[in-house]
């Protein structure tokens, strides 16, 4: 057993601490490696990967909102083969011990399966995050729809789980009338755990042109403004399922990370906060021990366990 009081063990994820950059907010790691040693992180959730290369949506793709932002990147990525040939080997060479969570996106069950199969065989990928909740892809908005309709979610997760060699965590959207139903379908399909939440859907307008600021019309809302929504939904899913949850949505401090664990998360993804402060993740990691002392938490693993026992009665 480890002496490390920040360590968290989850299926596929032997985390030295529970803090990991959220998908889409950290590229494939390389850029942030100029700022600090990525070995300090628990893991990295890399940018969404699809079967083929995608440019994504037209620009402008981001806008600011009070204590938040909108983005409509539209799953831009170089395609799974390029990610496997270039991005993951770079991480393996420079940070061989760092477990990577691959974010898999698709527009059909086949695509989820193809990408999951290929990427789950890469040595440093120790878990998959199945993105069934991106609000920014068109194709009849199928990207988001998959995460909204329990039957579609079930089929996509089943397809990915069947071929994946690593545990599959499924990323849930907050844009549903009842998150419990989707979570149940995802669990029934064989998911190992949940990551939640993805962005909310929103828009902003220019006063002068009366047009949306984001070229796509709408974008996904993230940042501290969505934190209370994330807490509420995480608690709801934690109450009904014993699968582990990697929580995210507006976390920007050690305080908000611990609060999300109280809501039911076992580990924490940090998204937008990386843009405000490139050192957000290591700062949160560094602050956790002090905060744990303040609240009498000896180690995070038992804290998480206690919180979850309380939630589930």
């Amino acid at each position, binding site marked *: 057993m480890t002496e490390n009081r920040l360590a968290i063990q989850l299926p596929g994820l032997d985390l030295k601490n529970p803090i990991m950059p959220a998908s889409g907010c950290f*590229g494939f790691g390389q*850029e942030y490696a100029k700022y600090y040693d990525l070995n300090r992180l628990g893991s990295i959730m890399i940018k969404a990967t699809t079967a083929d290369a995608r440019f994504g949506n037209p620009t402008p*793709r981001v806008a600011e909102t009070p204590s938040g932002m909108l983005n409509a*990147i539209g799953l831009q990525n170089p395609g799974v083969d390029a990610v496997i040939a270039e991005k993951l080997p770079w991480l393996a060479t420079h940070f061989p011990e760092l477990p990577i969570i691959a974010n898999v996106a698709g527009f059909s069950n086949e695509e989820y399966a193809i990408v999951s199969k290929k990427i789950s065989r890469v040595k440093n990928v120790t878990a998959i995050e199945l993105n069934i909740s991106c609000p920014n892809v068109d194709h009849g908005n199928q990207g988001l729809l998959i995460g909204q309709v329990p039957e579609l979610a079930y089929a996509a997760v089943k397809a990915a789980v069947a071929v994946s060699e690593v545990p599959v965590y499924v990323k849930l959207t907050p844009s549903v009338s009842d998150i419990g139903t989707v979570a149940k379908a995802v669990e029934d399909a064989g998911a190992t755990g949940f990551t939640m939440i993805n962005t909310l859907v929103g828009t902003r307008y220019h006063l002068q042109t009366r047009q949306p600021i984001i070229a796509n019309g709408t974008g996904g809302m993230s940042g501290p403004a969505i934190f209370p929504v994330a807490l509420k939904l995480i608690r709801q899913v934690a109450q009904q399922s014993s699968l582990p949850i990697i929580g995210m949505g507006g976390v920007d401090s050690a305080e908000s990370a611990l609060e999300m664990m109280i809501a039911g998360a076992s580990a924490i993804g940090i998204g937008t906060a990386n843009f405000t402060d490139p050192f957000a993740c290591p700062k949160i990691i560094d602050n956790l021990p002090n905060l744990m002392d303040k609240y009498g938490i000896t180690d995070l693993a038992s804290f998480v366990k206690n919180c979850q026992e309380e939630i589930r009665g």
Partner: protein
Amino acid sequence: MILQEDMLIVSNINIAPRVFRMVLKGEIVLDITAPDQFLHIRVPSPDKILRRPISISEYNKTDKSCVIIYRVEGPGLAVVSDMQAGQTLDVMGPLGNGFDMTGPFPNGKALIIGGGIGTPPLVQLAKDLTVTGIAVTVLLGFAQQSAVILETEFAAASSQLEIVTDDGSYGQKGNVGLLMDNLDLMSYDAIYACGAQGMLKAVASRTETHPNAFISMEARMACGMGACYACVVHVAGDETGQKSLKVCDEGPIFRVGEVVI
């Protein structure tokens, strides 16, 4: 490599309607490698979570100071415009590639074209070229007389300076395209432009065949350092439509013809 620092505000003064000139001091200045790299500025207000990209207008490594010139477009830079000498500003930088000054300069001539709030990053470029003995022609366009900035700085760092305004309230009436039409563009060894998208398009259409023409692009950014894919531009001539370059770290300077404007 420092990349993030609380820089000291030496001064912050209003130089034209909504336009401010701020002098900053810090170690980051020592890392600047070329004119028109930028700083990614954090607005000191808890509800402003995206940084603001602002070009470095001038810099002096000896006293570790640099100048930024910014126009308040919205509530974020409005907060920055209220900051005082002695306070500090959280900046990431220097980011971006900066202008390529490697030439060659067989004719010893360069042309610099700026428009509006796109003129500040060209000051250091004009100075550096002039110092190396290159004759610099500068064409600047502004909306009207009250918006004219940096005339003294460019006058000191050029052999020829011409200013136009859209409404003719200062200099000739018209835009910089008009002035370009009077020049033999191929006689300049390098052409550099920064300004509004329309201006960049006008420059690009006149310099398509020039081997050393550069434009500075703008894009809405989140990370500012290549991780979020917010700021991409299409690669020119890419038939797949899938190829892109990131303005924040593969730009903001591109060769004319390299990207779709």
